[in-house]
């Protein structure tokens, strides 16, 4: 790790101001950023910690929308969202290990947009809205590619708004080593339609499987997906799975998610 300065503001305004400084980067749970700094792969000059800002923390229900502060750890979502949005809570409870869940945050996960991460599938699959210090961004516009998002330099995610679906489920097939998603499917049924988001599979990061959505709009059953498949082309290939295997898992995990959603 290289030397860096550390700032822990108490308000969003202070954080935004500090982020204007040269070489500054927000630090949330640090579960992604700190390991990369330890390995000297990342060297911000100033870390602006977000976890001391009360306004960025907490889970609350506003009508049929669940609003989660960006600096809310996975473990808190796992318990506090459980009664309102069980699929989302279960997803949060399945991330990493207890240490990761007690530090890592939803804002950090979405900003990072790891192509194998879980939360991006929940946000896209729920048609969530990502709220920042300057604007609101629809999930459909937020994830722009592997490790890439619509966030501007210095822009901070402050909250994520999840419309609560009628039913939903997330099924993750674990990569054997990291236990991130080798492929994960998030299926959510809303009054106005079904959304299916797939993570861990595509070279472009999380994506919506529109053919599956259409089929499920006709009939929300696993059988409705019979015969549907995704092409191997454009899928990731690595030690743990070929593109063809990932394409296959997309269909398996989606079917299982539909069954699990009930």
């Amino acid at each position: 790790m290289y030397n860096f300065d550390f700032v822990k503001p108490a308000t969003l305004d202070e954080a935004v101001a500090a982020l204007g400084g040269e070489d500054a980067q927000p630090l949330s749970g640090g579960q992604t950023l700190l390991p990369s700094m330890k390995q000297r792969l990342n060297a911000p000059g100033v870390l602006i910690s977000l976890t001391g800002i009360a306004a960025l923390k907490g889970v609350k229900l506003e009508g049929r929308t669940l609003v989660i502060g960006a600096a809310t750890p996975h473990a808190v979502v796992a318990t506090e969202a459980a009664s309102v949005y069980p699929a989302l809570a279960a997803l949060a409870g399945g991330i990493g290990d207890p240490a990761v869940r007690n530090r890592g945050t939803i804002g950090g996960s979405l900003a990072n947009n790891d192509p194998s991460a879980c939360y991006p599938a929940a946000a896209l699959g729920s048609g969530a809205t990502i709220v920042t210090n300057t604007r609101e961004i629809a999930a459909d516009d937020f994830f722009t590619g592997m490790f890439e998002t619509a966030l501007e330099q210095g822009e901070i995610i402050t909250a994520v708004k999840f419309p609560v679906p009628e039913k939903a489920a997330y099924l993750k097939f674990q990569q054997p080593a990291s236990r991130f998603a080798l492929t994960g499917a998030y299926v959510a049924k809303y009054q106005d339609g079904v959304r299916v988001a797939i993570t861990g599979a595509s070279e472009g990061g999380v994506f919506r499987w529109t053919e599956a959505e259409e089929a499920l709009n006709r009939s929300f059953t696993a059988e409705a997906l019979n015969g549907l498949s995704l092409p191997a082309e454009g899928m990731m290939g690595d030690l743990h799975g070929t593109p063809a295997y990932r394409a296959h898992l997309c269909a398996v995990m989606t079917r299982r998610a539909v069954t699990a959603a009930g």
Partner: protein
Amino acid sequence: MPKDGGIGASTKRREDIRFLTGRGVYTDDLNLHGQTFAVFCRSTVAHGKIVSIDTSATEAMPGVLAVFTGEDFKDVGGNPAGWLINSRDGTPMREPKRPVLAHGKVRHVGDAYAAVVAETYAQAKDAAEQLAADTVIDELPAIVDMKAAVADPSNRVHDEIPDNLCFDWGWIEDNRAAVDEVFKSAPHVTTLELVNNRLVPNAMEPRASIGEYFPGTGDYKLTTTSQNPHLTRLLIAAFVMGIPENKLQVVAPDVGGGFGSKIYHYGEEAVVLAAAKKLKRPVRWTAERSESFLSDAHGRDHVTKIELACEKDGTFLAFRTETLANVGAYLSNFSTATPTFLHGTLMAGPYKVPKVYVNVKTVFTNTAPVDAYRGAGRPEATFSLERVIDKMCRELGLDQFEVRRKNFITPDMYPYTTPVGLVYDTGNYHATLDKALEMTDLAGFEARAAEAKSRGKLRGLGLSTWIEACGIAPSNLVGVLGSRVGLYDAATVRVNATGNISVMTGAHSHGQGHETVFAQIVAEKLGVDANSVEIVHGDTAKIPFGMGSYGSRSLAVCGSAIDRAMGKIIAKGKKIAAHMLEAAEGDIEFKDGTFSVAGTDKAKTFGEIAFSAYVPHNYPLETLEPGLEETAFYDPGNFTYPAGAYLCEVEVDPDTGKVQVVAFHCADDFGNIMNPLIVEGQVHGGVGQGIGQALCENTSYDENGQLTSASFMDYAMPRADDVPFYNVDYSCQTPCTHNPLGVKGCGEAGAIGSPPAVVNAVIDALHRGGYDHVTHIDMPVSPARVWAAMQKH
């Protein structure tokens, strides 16, 4: 009922109290006055010519005290291979020099070519980064694939070795023609090509070393993560640095796991010593996890073709194997013994197969050195045998249990000389197989499979009947086989004046539980309270010259040395008692901690004898020396031969290819059992590692020699949810006939016996599910590989 704290009691491990409460003292826990920090520059390319290393900018950096490159060590000795192997044509193996720091060329990613020592760790890190930037290395094509390495003589890991071959070994070469004859006329031949996957040891504690130099005396001290401090001292003193042995103290304090990877001497140890001398300050280094992945000696890495010739009824006629064994870029200390005498000699298994021939070509590649890892050679032999036997049973439609029974050596055949040069002293393989079947509830398997099917899962059952040679020892035998060291062990039993006992052992405990078990043996034999016995190990200044712990040798060899030293203590105690009780020495009996005159009530307790030994008023000093301390060296007559039967049940998810081990039954024969709790723990750990090898662990180098599985994000270690609740039995006991404790060793058993049981179970599950085109899947049997195998219709 075993005596409390004595032999056979499930005494809880006394060392766990400090390990589990964070009070262990590991190398990195030591903080020394004036200490400095070393950081190594490691090659980022697999193969390259070192063109230049400009140290000037680095030397000028804040806190930098010294910079070392390969040039500084070019005149000192190389780190040697401990075992000389001759090729089939009689020529000795090729032994390229393994320098302290790479010189001229770098030969694998992670190969250290320079070291920087600075006042702080951060300064040393910064300086090493600068030095790397000021180093020019011309990348050369990497030699990664063993077949290509042998086939292409133009590209060489070591310029002087044209075909990248260390040796081409035949075992037993004289039997080659006869074995070939059997195959020509055999009624059935089963052939299997398989890979025994390379493993990264991943001890919980990474390697660490601290060098000290004392200018007043010229003494050196090395504190290091070693499984055998005397061996490390010998290698550094006699081969690498020429420090007189009596001027070098090597201490291996608490060590957090080794699995073989800490047997060997590594260049970092020499660097911290040389730097300490230069700076006259302590120099410390602790590997980062990434360094461990890149530079610890890896394990396994064989590519094998095995053939089994048999009658149509499954009676074995011969085994024949051709193996390519990867040694990596340099010869690590035991790297040449592992694929040969720890592998080829086991290729008859527990079977009365008349003919066996083993060919091993050992190949240099631009990868990390490969050496012994828990089981070392014997897992490779067991995997090849048990997989090809399983395949043969399927081909001929034979019952796998009956085929084993038909071919097992029977209890009336001992001592049994195998066609691959070993003499098994005792065993009963039918008994362990029967036991395992009883534990499995074989009759209930179909019902379990049907229930699994109702959940969409394919259930399978896999068997492995394994044997190993361990208690790695007999010096005369290993000497004939090419070992350059003796493999006896040593112990000193010191009875202190107040009656408590210090036992100095050549064994080194890095998680095995010696402090508990050895004390139990002493307590039993000397009739004292186990809590009054202290086990001292891991410091060349304290212990007699021992060879350390590996090859399941601690109890069989080092424990026997302790037993022998205790025999001397008892003999001396009898002399003292005879003097004190005014009786003839021959009339003194020793039992339950009391010396008595036979047939009388005259007696002295062990404590009284000890006290008198150190307060020798009225001693007949001409015939009786004061003191009660004895040393014994023990060199056994043979290896020991633990064996057993493992049955594994798996469930395969046909949609994803994921394999779950749902039951694992072990029936082992370890001879006499000293502490059942520790035996069970060793089997659990060993089977866990075997399941890791079978299902999870994939060490992957790409075609450029980059390790693509260089962190826990990609290298899958087995976790709690990958392993089942184990069912372990050790009630089948045929005690070893040649060591005083009758013990065989249990440390490696699980890792040796389990991988083929798991893979056989997966193949069984797939066949039961209708995927009978799948004859083999290479380890690790990952979900992706299972799914891919299922697709090939």
